[in-house]
């Protein structure tokens, strides 16, 4: 820890207010890489210091960024990851836990893989960023300097969109939209529900994280109820005017698998929630009283992104340069994952966050290796899966190519689409996909 700080101290002090020009920088870096030989922290001198990248957030975006920064620089960049939670719990596959087909430990991983790559993992809460002074402050008062910062805070909830509900006073009304304690708690509520009870899930207007996930959740809760609580009801109360992803697949699953169990109601934007009676009121139509009420509030970029002034779009999302994922608001800061203002037709999802992180890492690492960053980032592929019961799943996939005219990624239409039909083979692929995505993020 001392060495680490020492390295930066020396570098910064010697540099003073230097304006490192590019050639000097590359020369210094090449020497640094040669001298460091992968062990970046030893033998640092003024010109041989390793650059330091701090990553805020250890979800799919942040963890992948940390991993690829170390791999891509052959250990030549020091990387510190700041994460609030002690471990990693995957949002993809968490609906299987809510439906009872998997346990929380099946979808939980640790950060030891990243540590083995030389990532310094700090479990703490980043509360402030100084984009000019290039530093991050944590809730415990400690501070970290950085040369480049990756901000991957995921989503926060817009509680003001669900009057009556707050983060502190949600009581039994869970969102379970960030995997972890709420996932388990929602599972328990469903298990404790009486036969004949009503499970209601309220879906916010788009954009929200993981478009298909609310409909998948309804299926998996219905699958559990079909066997264990056959008189129960699963109500889907959607603020949108239609199913937002894999529409045909969900519609056929509801009518074929759960004909008397699942009911879909579009055009149900929430006007208020009464926590005590688990009643939700809508702008139009009848109020609904549920036995298990699952309200997913509208979402925006995580708090630290807002605090740091990285939010540039609609008070919600962070605008970025898609070539590098660098913030449009502050140079030196890259934003990846669901906190970004999505390019057209680009989903906010685990796999997409994982791909964002690789774009950012490549852009950060390239100058260190003496390469000029690619003027156009690579074409990225995205896949996601939904389960309709504990075995049958279907994919949605898309390919996104950078479009210089648009200055953003655009969808490649012929490469994008969903399964024709749910199936068991795709159920196996879905689970395999998760194993590989977790490995690519954390192993």
């Amino acid at each position: 820890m001392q060495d680490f700080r020492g390295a930066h101290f020396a570098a910064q002090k010697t540099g003073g207010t230097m304006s490192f020009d590019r050639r000097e920088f590359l020369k210094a870096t090449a020497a640094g890489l040669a001298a460091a030989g992968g062990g970046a922290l030893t033998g640092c001198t003024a010109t041989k210091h390793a650059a330091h990248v701090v990553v805020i957030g250890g979800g799919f975006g942040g963890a992948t960024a940390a991993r690829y920064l170390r791999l891509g620089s052959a250990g030549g960049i020091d990387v510190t990851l700041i994460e609030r939670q002690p471990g990693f719990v995957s949002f993809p596959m968490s609906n299987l836990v809510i439906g009872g087909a998997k346990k929380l430990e099946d979808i939980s991983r640790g950060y030891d893989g990243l540590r083995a790559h030389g990532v310094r993992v700090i479990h703490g809460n980043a509360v402030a960023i100084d984009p000019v002074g290039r530093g991050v402050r944590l809730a415990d008062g400690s501070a970290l300097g950085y040369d480049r910062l990756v901000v991957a805070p995921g989503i926060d909830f817009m509680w003001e969109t669900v009057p009556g509900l707050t983060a502190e006073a949600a009581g039994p009304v869970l969102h379970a939209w960030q995997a972890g304690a709420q996932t388990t708690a929602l599972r328990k509520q469903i298990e404790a529900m009486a036969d004949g009870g009503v499970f209601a899930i309220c879906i916010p207007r788009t954009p929200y994280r993981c478009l298909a996930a609310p409909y998948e959740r309804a299926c998996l809760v219905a699958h559990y109820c079909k066997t264990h609580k056959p008189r129960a009801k699963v109500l889907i109360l959607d603020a949108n005017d239609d199913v937002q992803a894999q529409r045909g697949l969900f519609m056929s699953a509801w009518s074929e698998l759960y004909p008397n169990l699942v009911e879909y109601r579009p055009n149900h934007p929430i006007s208020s929630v009464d926590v005590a009676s688990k009643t939700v009121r809508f702008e139009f139509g009848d109020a609904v009283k549920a036995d298990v009420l699952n309200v997913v509030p509208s979402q925006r970029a995580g708090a630290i992104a807002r605090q740091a002034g990285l939010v540039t779009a609609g008070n919600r999302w962070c605008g970025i340069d898609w070539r590098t994922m660098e913030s449009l608001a502050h140079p030196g800061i890259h934003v990846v994952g669901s906190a970004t203002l999505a390019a057209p037709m680009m989903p906010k999802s685990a796999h997409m966050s994982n791909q964002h992180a690789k774009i950012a890492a490549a852009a950060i690492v390239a100058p260190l290796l003496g390469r000029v960053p690619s003027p156009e980032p690579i074409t990225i592929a995205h896949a996601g899966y939904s389960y309709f019961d504990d075995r049958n799943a279907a994919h949605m996939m898309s390919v996104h190519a950078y479009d210089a005219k648009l200055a953003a990624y655009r969808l490649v239409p012929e490469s994008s689409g969903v399964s024709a039909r749910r199936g068991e083979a795709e159920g196996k692929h879905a689970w395999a996909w998760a194993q590989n995505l977790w490995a690519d993020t954390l192993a």
Partner: protein
Amino acid sequence: MKMRWSGLAFTVGALTLSAGALAAPPTAAMLVNACAGCHGVNGGSAGPSMPSLANQSKEAIVVAMKKFKSGERPSTVMGKLAKGYSDADYAAMGELLSKQKLHATTQTLDAAKVAKGKSLEEANCSRCHMEGGKEGKEDSPVMASQWLPYLSIQMNQYLDGTRKMPEKMAEKVKPMSKTDLDALMHFYASVK
């Protein structure tokens, strides 16, 4: 507000990016990294229904991608995905993957089947799937250490005709019983 960091004001951006500066194509590594979310780390799949791509020959990758693109080879997502990339991309991916080390898997296998598979393999398959399936002749895929569920999905596609067998393969496979084929798959899954 300007904060102070451990008594030091950080004023230097040691890394400078200027994305528009010069043309340099994306590297093969960047392309192949984009595959890793589904196919695993260093070309080694951690998901039993998905193939490892490490150590496949360049030809095997290029031919597979072209067949996915044309629809000749059945798939769930690959047919769509392949349309998003060019022949040059396939070649770059294949080049890099061919240099990655074989991904050895540890699977629960039936030793008797493995032994039987080995005896069948030498006489029937080894001219194209060489070195116990660790190498492939021309565009023949590397079979060694692939997950049993993946091998089984592919064999079923060959048998039901949705994936077309190369002629030489069909000559060998058609006379074999399901038990023989099962033993062969156990053998290939066992090779490290």
